[in-house]
């Protein structure tokens, strides 16, 4: 057995020939997606993931990883396995989106008209 001063190595009980015991249940925790809210009323934003064995622990770790430096008022955690996501193979469903700028507010060329009006009428 490798006898190390580093407890992370010592507790793995690694044999001299380097064979590592197979993983058992609880050795690997699930991941949780973390969302934080900067101000009450604002949307929660995705900030990253944490490993955790349950919801409560995920909240604790989420607070620590993502809420310890910046300002947060609220945190959500969601099991990554509960997120239903689109497939990257289906990315073509988004392909023609850039052609449809008229669907975006920015697609309307209205600012030019506003600026022209402001200039003509000396509105600030």
């Amino acid at each position, binding site marked *: 057995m490798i006898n190390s001063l*580093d*407890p*992370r190595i010592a507790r793995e009980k690694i044999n001299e020939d380097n064979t590592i015991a197979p993983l058992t249940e*609880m050795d690997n*925790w699930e991941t949780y997606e973390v969302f934080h809210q900067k101000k009450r009323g604002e949307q929660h934003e995705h900030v990253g993931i*944490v*490993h*955790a*064995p*349950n919801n*409560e*622990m995920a909240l*604790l*770790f989420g*607070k*620590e*990883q993502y809420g*310890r430096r910046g300002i947060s008022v609220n945190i959500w955690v969601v099991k990554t396995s509960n997120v239903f996501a689109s497939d990257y193979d289906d990315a073509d469903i988004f392909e023609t989106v850039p052609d449809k700028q008229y669907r975006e507010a920015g697609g309307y060329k209205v600012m030019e008209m506003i600026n022209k009006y402001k200039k003509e009428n000396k509105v600030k």
Partner: protein
Amino acid sequence: MNVTAIKDLLYKMADDLLIIGHRNSEWTGLGPILEEDIAFSSMAQDKIGQAGALFEILHELGEGEPDTVAFMRDANKMHCSQFVELPNGEYDFSIMRHFLFDHADQLRFEMLANSSFEPLAQVAKKIKGELKYHVFHANTWVVKLGNGSEESKARMQTALNESWNYALGMFEAGDFEKELQSENIFKGEEALKTRWMANITPFIEKANLKIPDQSTWEPILGGRKGYHTDYLQKLVEEMGEVFRLDPTAQW
């Protein structure tokens, strides 16, 4: 206001926080997983910060500079309970100590939020949220591990058994209990212990653990009066090693 009594109270609180903060920080880089390592280290830092706030008040009451007071005293001049100076052992003991200590810490500050000694009441109000989070962290771990595998259950029960009499020692009566109570500064160690028992019991039950039988209770006292285990002197020397090289250095 009885300044001697206030100083006595502040010293034992500050020393408890300084020493548990230092002990818990020894896990930095060695925690069971990355997320928990960061969480535990961050709380250890909070504890040192809380100690710092109390040393500041002591300084305003005429005691030495906070750094000097924290790093230059030998063990026999420290007022921490023996519980906080014990080595970390394995994570079971560290988590159990964190649970038992932080419940007491939270309640002590909660009681002090209404203290007639205003500076202490202010600190208590300021760190309320911090303490709530520390206790939430401790409760979550204890309940989780107490309901985990056979090994984790056995380890947590052993940790509780080994901690118990030391934990009771946190409530060692001081020399000024009456003065502190009559001046509405602090309601006293006995009152704190009663609240502590009421707060920890439901979580210990939820964790399926058992508080040792009352017939075996023997609080380990002396810490508040400067009597300590041999572990503390070594800790104090290590903690103050750099500071003691040149106490006048500017940081």
